[in-house]
């Protein structure tokens, strides 16, 4: 490797994940921290930290110049943006190049075209990938209402710079659209530093399936199979699995072919994910978005392929060719991830920041926990609520479910409320076991019939 020292421009569990990947690869790693994260687990595990500003992410993690200055001051030669924050801001990739730093991610132009969800729809269409009906970006409430009248309600109001389901809301009427537009735009501004919104037709009965891509600087693009992330609440993924067991072979192949076609059209370099809505009744699918970064749920793919995606990101950024081709990628067994968030399921998912007083993750051989939690850690109110990803593998889906249930039962976290009881209910439900759910299932079927605690 010519990369010797990496700046992690992120926080939370993904900062820990990147720190560990760097250290495993013999690379020094420095973490950029806000005042709220000076004592984080990533900070403790890294070679050093650079302090880049106040807790408010707009004044720290979302400032390109602070990240670049932090990398230069700490002697780094590369910047890993993680997910969220600046990970899909082309300005950071541009600034890295300008200041002689390697950006661990695709080139700025790819981020611009893929990360801008409006442009991405256009590129996908041109690559022959099916896209549903929707709009270009809309700049005002009035414009949104006018476009929605054409697309038809219900619609989804989405952040052009979004991803991970943030800044995204289902709207059923023009009045609701008018009242939600400003808040949704501001949430997008707060999360991504970009308040532009667009509209998409809302599909009632769908599965969320996505394909992991890796591309190098030598023209090689492979996919690492698919993931199913249909268990969602308010477009926030709560349970993810690999592979998407619900897909028949033919549909699976068409979806991965579409993802690779889009990747080739973008000359994709680095790790990326192409998301689709799948309509099982019609045996059809349509493009949702491409995320030009590491994805929260990347571990389930790692567990069934044996490929360390963060390590591959670093190798690709370093200019190395992929060490394998499509034929070498095999899917073995099944993996399930539960995103354990600091939210109270008995109190309408109210965020639950606070101090962790007990922390005992399960330790079985088939369990992996990606987390920045520890006893005494103070989960701050300034950032998203993810505190742990519980990843469990099995020889098949049934075994992965059974083992996940036991792992959820034994994972004790005190001091903050978490979504763990809900994930237990999901995995224990026959609909999940039978794999008959849709993206609506959690909100329309499970939650109304479920009484936590």
């Amino acid at each position, binding site marked *: 490797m010519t990369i010797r020292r990496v700046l992690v421009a992120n926080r939370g569990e993904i900062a820990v994940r990147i720190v560990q990947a760097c250290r495993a690869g013999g690379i020094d790693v420095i973490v950029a921290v806000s*005042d709220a994260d000076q004592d984080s687990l990533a900070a403790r595990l890294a070679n050093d930290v650079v302090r880049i500003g106040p807790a408010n992410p707009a004044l720290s993690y979302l400032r390109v110049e602070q990240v670049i200055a932090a990398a230069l001051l700490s002697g780094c030669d590369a910047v890993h943006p993680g997910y969220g924050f600046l990970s899909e801001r082309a300005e950071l990739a541009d600034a890295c190049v300008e200041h002689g730093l390697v950006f661990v991610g695709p080139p700025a132009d790819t981020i611009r075209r893929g990360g801008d969800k409006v442009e991405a729809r256009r590129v996908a269409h041109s690559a022959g990938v099916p896209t549903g009906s929707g709009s270009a970006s809309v700049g005002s409430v009035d414009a949104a209402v006018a476009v929605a009248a054409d697309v038809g309600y219900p619609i989804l109001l989405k952040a052009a710079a979004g991803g991970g389901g943030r800044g995204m809301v289902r709207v059923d009427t023009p009045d609701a659209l008018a009242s939600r537009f400003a808040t949704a735009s501001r949430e997008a501004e707060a999360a991504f530093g970009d308040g532009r919104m667009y509209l998409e037709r809302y599909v009632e009965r769908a599965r969320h399936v996505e394909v992991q891509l890796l591309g190098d600087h030598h023209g090689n693009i492979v996919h690492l199979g698919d993931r199913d992330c249909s268990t969602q609440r308010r477009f926030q993924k709560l349970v993810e699995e690999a592979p998407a067991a619900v897909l028949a072979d033919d549909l699976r192949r068409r979806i991965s072919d579409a993802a690779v076609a889009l990747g080739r059209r973008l000359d994709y370099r680095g790790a990326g994910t192409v998301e689709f809505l799948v309509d099982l009744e019609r045996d059809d699918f349509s493009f949702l978005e491409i995320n030009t970064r590491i994805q929260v749920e990347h571990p389930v793919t790692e567990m069934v392929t044996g490929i360390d995606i963060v390590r591959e990101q670093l190798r690709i950024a370093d200019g190395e060719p992929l060490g394998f081709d499509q034929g070498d990628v095999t899917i073995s067994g099944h993996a399930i991830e539960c995103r354990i968030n600091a939210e109270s399921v008995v109190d309408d998912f109210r965020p639950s920041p606070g101090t962790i007083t007990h922390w005992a993750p399960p330790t079985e051989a088939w369990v992996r926990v990606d987390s920045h939690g520890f006893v005494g850690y103070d989960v701050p109110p*300034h950032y*998203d609520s993810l505190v742990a990803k519980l990843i469990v593998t099995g020889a098949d889906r049934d075994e992965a479910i059974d083992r996940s249930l036991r792992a959820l039962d034994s994972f004790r976290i005190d001091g903050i409320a978490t979504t763990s009881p809900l994930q237990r209910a999901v995995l224990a439900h026959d609909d999940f076991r039978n794999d008959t759910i849709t993206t609506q299932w959690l909100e329309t079927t499970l939650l109304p019939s479920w009484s936590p605690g």
Partner: protein
Amino acid sequence: MHGSGDAIKRVVEAFERSNWTEIDVRVGDIRVHLVAGGAASAAPTEVPATPVGSTAISAAVGVPSIAPVPVALEVPPGAHLVTAPSPGILWRSPEPGAPPFADVGDQLESSTTVCILEVMKLMSHIKAGVEGQVVAVYGENGVAVEKGQPLFAIAPSRQMS
């Protein structure tokens, strides 16, 4: 080489060839704070890439950005206090530059939104809770507030029994 003279030089050079207005980063006991067009000189200035003592640093930045809670809140007799239901960031208007949801003198319904509390990237609308007139505002826009911290005082239109 981190935090070394070379590294500081790279930061200063990067600043000089960029259109950045301000950077402020710290490694160990090294702080580099550069402000463009500073009062003292016209050029992208200076600043003391000065090593400062670690004690001084923790004193300077270790203080959380929590809004000071007035020692003795002036709560008019009989007023209803709207308090923060959890820690979070206080937003007094629906979007930057817009007028605040509620200000002193405003007449509110019980269901009127008085502010937004941002907690873990979720925006919660905080309601007045009583019908009445705003008589005091305690929190500033954009500051972090603690659970239970008073945000507004409202004089109820009807005496509550």
